[in-house]
């Protein structure tokens, strides 16, 4: 495996994956668990292969398997390491097209299931085209067991006036390496909302590259990660304002226990002519133990006029005064710590418009806190 040598990989060490003998999976006949909540449709990948008999779509959505079609290149990403790995080991590739007027009550679910009894290398690819004026709500889910190295590419094409609500729940197996690029093109008047929740994988990197390509294009991203033990979680974003008058915001909350490492690299580019841009970025991290570490790297590259661009990063530990206040009311220390951690991330969760995933994410946070308690960070 080729090393990830670029500057943007400075904080995320993939070296342990080099010594693993990765095998190519077989297309089996896996048993796929049902969706945990009501869905309007489902697209399932198992070990990088599209599982057609577990997938279905509502009226107004259709998919095609891309056999020989050349896919859009990820050449404008900060680095193409993940895209290259995906291209080199490509398995199934799918395009989902969403027409205007799909009025589904429940979200679509897209599942990436990775089950490596022996170490497996996975490389699926998915493109989603949201046609002019269409809207799509989907939950992207990563889960599984065993040792896997996934290099996943997802492309989102939001045509003019379309609208996408994207919730990503990354609960990959303890031994998983999960690399993914989400490549988003947002046309004029289109709006993208992403909420990314992460508590899985031994090492994960989510690389988001969004281009706002016209007036009134919008991107709003919220990200919450809870990491412990020796987990690494990397969120690397590039938000490119290519046209005038577009708005973007990113809020990142990272909670780190044990010797976990959190990384947020947020790059904002404002191209010449993208006047009236409004771009915001904020990262806050909570360190629950001395061994935990957060690395934050904002990068702004502004080449237009009349631009509002703000960024901020803060890292701290639990507020001792708040902890004492809660305990003085009779709340035991571990429970008090849990309340404070939940409070730290819940403001972001409440902003996410996709209600279907809230209860699930809240339950995951509870479970994480319970496990963190046992370890006693």
């Amino acid at each position, binding site marked *: 495996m080729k090393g990830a040598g670029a500057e943007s990989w400075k904080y995320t060490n993939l070296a342990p994956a080099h010594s693993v003998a990765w095998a190519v999976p077989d297309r089996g006949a896996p048993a796929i668990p049902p969706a945990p909540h009501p869905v309007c449709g489902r697209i399932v990948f198992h070990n990088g292969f599209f599982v057609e008999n577990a997938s279905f779509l509502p009226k107004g959505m259709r998919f095609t398997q891309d056999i020989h079609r050349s896919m859009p290149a990820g050449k404008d990403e900060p680095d193409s390491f993940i895209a290259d790995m995906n291209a080199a080991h490509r398995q199934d590739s799918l395009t989902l097209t969403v027409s205007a007027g799909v009025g589904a009550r429940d979200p679509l679910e897209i599942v990436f299931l990775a089950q490596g009894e022996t170490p497996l290398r996975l490389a699926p690819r998915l493109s989603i085209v949201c046609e002019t004026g269409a809207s799509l709500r989907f939950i992207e889910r990563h889960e599984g067991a065993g040792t896997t190295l996934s290099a996943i590419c997802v492309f989102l094409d939001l045509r003019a006036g379309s609208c996408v609500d994207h919730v990503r729940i990354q609960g990959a197996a303890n031994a998983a390496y999960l690399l993914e690029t989400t490549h988003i093109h947002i046309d004029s008047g289109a709006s993208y909302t992403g909420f990314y929740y992460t508590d899985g994988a031994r090492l994960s990197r989510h690389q988001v590259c969004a281009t706002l390509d016209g007036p009134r294009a919008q991107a709003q991203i919220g990200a919450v990660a809870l990491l412990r033990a020796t987990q690494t979680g990397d969120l690397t974003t590039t938000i490119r304002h290519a046209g005038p008058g577009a708005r973007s915001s990113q809020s990142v909350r990272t909670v780190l226990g044990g010797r976990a490492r959190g990384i947020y690299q947020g790059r904002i580019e404002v191209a010449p002519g993208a006047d009236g841009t409004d771009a915001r970025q904020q990262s806050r991290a909570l360190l629950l133990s001395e061994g935990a570490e957060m690395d934050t790297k904002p990068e702004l590259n502004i080449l237009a006029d009349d631009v509002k661009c703000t960024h901020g990063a803060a890292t701290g530990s639990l507020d001792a005064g708040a902890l*004492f206040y809660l*305990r003085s*009311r*009779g709340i035991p220390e571990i429970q008090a710590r849990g*309340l*404070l951690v939940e409070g730290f*991330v819940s403001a972001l969760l409440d902003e996410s418009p996709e209600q279907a995933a809230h209860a699930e994410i809240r339950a995951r946070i509870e479970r994480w806190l319970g496990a963190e308690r046992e370890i006693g960070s």
Partner: protein
Amino acid sequence: MLTIKNLHVGVSGKDILKGLDLNIGPGEVHVIMGPNGAGKSTLAYALAGREGYDVTQGDVLLDGQSLVGMEPEARAAAGLFLAFQYPVEIPGVLWSTFLKTAVNALRKARGQTEIDALGFLKMMKARAEALGISDDMLKRAVNVGFSGGEKKRCEALQLSILEPRLAVLDETDSGLDIDAMKIVAGAVNALRGPQRSFLMITHYQKLLDLIAPDRVHILSGGKIIRSGGPELAQHLEEKGFAGVVA
């Protein structure tokens, strides 16, 4: 109910309380007054078990049980409550979550069953209303963005919901407007009973007109230097600390 014997407390290696004695009987209301920096809040924090407030000598007994070395939550379970001079803001934690968690933690520690969500909500709303706290305020995060007076009202709300055996009120009257002070004093008076005692820290005679105390103590230089009836506060109001200490 509360017995403090020869209490010495150090903060960051500096002795703040230097041999404080105090006895509060069941149902009594005691007041501590004293100049800024005398150690009043230090006493309150030491009673509640705040980290960094080290008892270097002496003892504190609540109903005969020593509090020294106990965790703050265990002291609360034993019946102690502290209304903070500066209530803490807790982003992202809603009042209802916080109060219900506290009530149930105390019940659990005392071997009682948990209160059901609906019953709790009704109780919380009724007690909030009595203190002039609106439903909208309770939908927000604990103390976040609250005015000084609103925070103090919410300390009083916690007092009325948690129903402690011994309530330490650290300048709960400071920052309250006249009407609010009357409301809070009314809440305290309503809670008075043969099995509940109060230790009120204040700078103002006004509060003592509304809540008639049994005893008034003056804390200065880390010790109680004078004790008396309500007339001592009156005397203090006229002469100032300089006149009384001299």
